[in-house]
């Protein structure tokens, strides 16, 4: 468990930047914790916009006779909903918010290694969000090209928002990537080079492993999106032909010619598939920690969990073309990519088994974070299993572009990571604000969200099986094609979606209400071992740890250790200082 040699400090401590004015302390702050909160609030604000867009879309599909939005608007909403949720909400929240808050605290650093760069990263992200948001108010509105932005249609006439919306979207993505790179370099180097004494890589909590690996993926995957965004911008603004073949529009030959639309798909998905794991890996990490803490048991197979995260990360770079089975690429590609896709199921399944084996015979506390974790495991399992269907070429082809796909990816990378985010907020809220979130509202929020999302996405699998295509703003006279149950189900799904949406409003209310009115949290309320709860103050102040940085003697999972009086031993407590339970002479050794 704990090795006896704790090495001396290798580096003198770097002087911290101390804010000199209100502006540099509260607004242009270089403190990773405040930057994290700024990232989080911005991501939630733009994410809320995406949530509201989904309500409009659901109402439109369920009640087409109301004609609440036009077909063009529907495409615009679908595009913005997808792009915001995947990039501007989930990526920014997991890496920008959780990464900034937790990495320095969990590895025992006073701040990120480059606080100034970190600050610039947030403000660049804010600019990206604003540029994206502005596109709602430009002539023609935001782009309606679908979140994949496939050319040639993304920049041609007839696609909503092809006037300015698509340009703003691409520019915004470029800005986001520049901003993310600045933050991402910080996260990676802080984990690699700025850990405290005794914090070996294999003693880091899995949360840090997840965020770290996801950041590495992002640093290598976002370049593909960056390059393709730049090239499409040139196609749009300079009339180059990177992605544009010779085209005839309304009987007129366009000046494009000789480009390759498939190239864009390859580049996009070379980013797009790692992006799935950029969202999923931090969720894996956080959920592992939360399960271990709230089941009072060490994580099962810690080393394998780490290697699974790293393995999934590496494999995620060689599976991208399973998004392109129907694109007309060489069929042998499909064979290769189906194989690699199914191989990814191995480390992923390993993780699911390990979560369940951690729960096995654990002292499970059904706290709200634990409820969300349990919700995550089943949801992720569900979404993962439908992934096996879609990963196989023969099954994918008929299911392609149906609601089955919608159900699959919402389950696996929509609902599942969001459940983790929500659980993580309930878990770390006392650390960040010093108050507990209201328990009753929290439980209401969980049950409506969890059951509601099943009511939304389970029927969608069925819709997909009977062939209902996605991205249609109304089904029209389709009784001949689909049973009337399709229309009824759409109404049902919409009602469920609105209920889940309402529950999120309760959650938002809870978050703001509890800052003032919440119960004051005791120190380390979940009795967690990891360093972020061992700070002298709660919430931690600038510099995180008091005069001396903590020294780490053990891994982050010493729960219910036989012989210890408490059921947890914090990472910075050496063996000799552990209070022994009655009848024990040392840890794990009973009196004879």
């Amino acid at each position, binding site marked *: 468990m704990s090795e006896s*040699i704790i*090495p*001396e*400090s*290798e*580096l*003198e401590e*770097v*002087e911290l*930047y101390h804010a000199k004015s209100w502006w540099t302390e509260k607004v242009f702050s270089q403190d990773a914790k405040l930057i994290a909160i700024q990232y989080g609030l911005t991501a939630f604000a733009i994410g809320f916009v995406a949530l509201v867009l989904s309500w409009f879309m659901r109402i439109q599909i369920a009640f087409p006779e109301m004609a609440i939005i036009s077909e063009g608007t529907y495409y615009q909403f679908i595009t913005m909903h997808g792009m915001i949720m995947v990039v501007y909400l989930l990526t920014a929240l997991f890496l920008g918010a959780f990464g900034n808050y937790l990495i320095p605290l969990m590895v025992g650093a006073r701040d990120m*290694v*480059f606080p*100034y*760069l970190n600050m610039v990263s947030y403000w660049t992200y804010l600019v990206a969000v604003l540029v994206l948001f502005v596109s709602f108010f430009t002539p023609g509105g935001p782009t309606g090209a679908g979140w994949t932005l496939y050319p040639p249609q993304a920049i041609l006439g007839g696609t909503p928002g092809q006037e300015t919306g698509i340009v703003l979207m691409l520019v915004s993505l470029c800005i986001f990537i520049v901003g993310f*790179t600045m933050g991402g*370099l*910080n996260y*990676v*180097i802080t984990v*690699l*080079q*700025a*850990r*405290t*004494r*005794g*914090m*070996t*890589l*294999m*003693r880091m909590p899995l949360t840090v492993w997840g965020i770290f690996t996801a950041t590495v993926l992002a*640093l*290598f995957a*976002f*370049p*593909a999106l*960056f*390059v*393709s965004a*730049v*090239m499409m911008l*040139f196609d749009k603004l*300079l*009339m*180059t*032909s*990177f992605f544009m073949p010779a085209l005839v529009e309304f009987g007129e030959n366009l*000046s494009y*010619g*000789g*480009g*390759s639309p498939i*190239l864009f798909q390859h*580049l996009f998905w*070379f980013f797009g598939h790692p992006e799935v794991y950029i969202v999923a890996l931090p969720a894996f990490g956080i959920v592992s920690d939360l399960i271990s803490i709230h089941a009072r048991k060490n994580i099962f197979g810690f080393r394998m969990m780490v290697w699974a995260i790293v393995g999934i990360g590496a494999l995620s770079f060689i599976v991208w073309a399973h998004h392109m089975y129907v694109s007309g690429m060489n069929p042998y590609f499909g064979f290769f990519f189906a194989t690699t896709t199914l191989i990814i199921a191995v480390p992923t399944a390993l993780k699911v088994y390990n979560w369940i084996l951690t729960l096995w015979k654990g002292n499970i506390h059904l706290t709200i974070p634990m409820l969300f974790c349990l919700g995550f495991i089943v949801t992720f399992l569900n979404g993962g299993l439908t992934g096996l269907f879609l990963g196989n070429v023969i099954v994918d082809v008929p299911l392609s572009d149906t609601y089955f796909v919608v159900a699959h990816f919402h389950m696996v990378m929509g609902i599942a990571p969001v459940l983790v985010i929500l659980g993580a907020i309930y878990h770390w809220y006392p650390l960040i604000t010093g108050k507990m979130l209201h328990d009753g509202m929290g439980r209401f929020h969980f049950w409506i969200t969890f059951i509601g999302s099943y009511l939304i996405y389970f029927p969608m699998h069925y819709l997909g099986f009977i062939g209902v295509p996605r991205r249609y703003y109304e089904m029209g006279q389709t009784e001949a094609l689909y049973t009337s149950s399709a229309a009824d189900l759409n109404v049902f799904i919409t009602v469920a979606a609105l209920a889940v949406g309402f529950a999120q409003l309760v959650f938002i209310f809870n978050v703001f209400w509890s800052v003032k009115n919440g119960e004051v949290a005791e120190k380390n309320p979940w009795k967690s071992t990891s360093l972020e709860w061992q700070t002298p103050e709660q919430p931690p102040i600038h510099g995180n740890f008091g005069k001396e940085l903590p020294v*780490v003697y053990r891994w982050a999972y010493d729960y219910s250790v036989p012989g210890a009086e408490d059921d947890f031993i914090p990472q910075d407590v050496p063996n000799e200082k552990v209070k022994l339970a009655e009848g024990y002479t040392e840890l794990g050794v009973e009196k004879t």
Partner: protein
Amino acid sequence: MTTTSKVPLREGMEGFVSDWASDQRAFKGVPWGKAMMWIFLLSDTFIFSIFLISYMTARWSTVEPWPNTSEVFALTVNGVSVPLLLIAIMTFILITSSGTMAMAVRSGYQKKRKQAAILLYLTAILGLSFVGMQAFEWTKLIEEGIRPWENPFGARQFGSIFFMVTGFHGFHVSVGVIFLFITARKVLRGDYDTGRRGFFTWQKGRYEIIETMGLYWHFVDLVWVFIFAFFYLW
């Protein structure tokens, strides 16, 4: 500052893994800035690789013939058309600047303040002349009618991809030149000896910064070698 862990390493592979995973730092003796630059360059490598892969794809997918590069990039001197003359000079200058950069790093670590500053200025000036010649080359191509959207000598993708990739590389060089001038100024002023704080970052600079700067500069040179091979020789 100690650079190595005091815990004795285990033998073989086990020692390698435990060393990398050991506490505080994965890369012993590597300053934060240098580690960050390496990771950034890896990320940047992806950007340039994808640019070059896109270039190859465009070259295969276009239906028009690719222009003959040794004619397009030729320079007429005294009525004799010399293929790749300008590019040869540009490449020579950039590689030379890599040499002066490496010497600047060495002088920096030897704390030879003036010598390091002079070498950095020299590197920056060589970089600047590279950008200047690139501007000259662009002007020549544009005068001949090559545009991002059209190309009188063949496939239009030639113009678009050439301007995009060399432009992106030229942008890298220009950024490098700016930072070289800033670093040179700081070295000459003695910031790294007196511990003067950076204007924005409020951090004390060290001579290691020259090496970090050098990593970036060598990377930009290396990318140029690939661009040179793929655009001018293929």
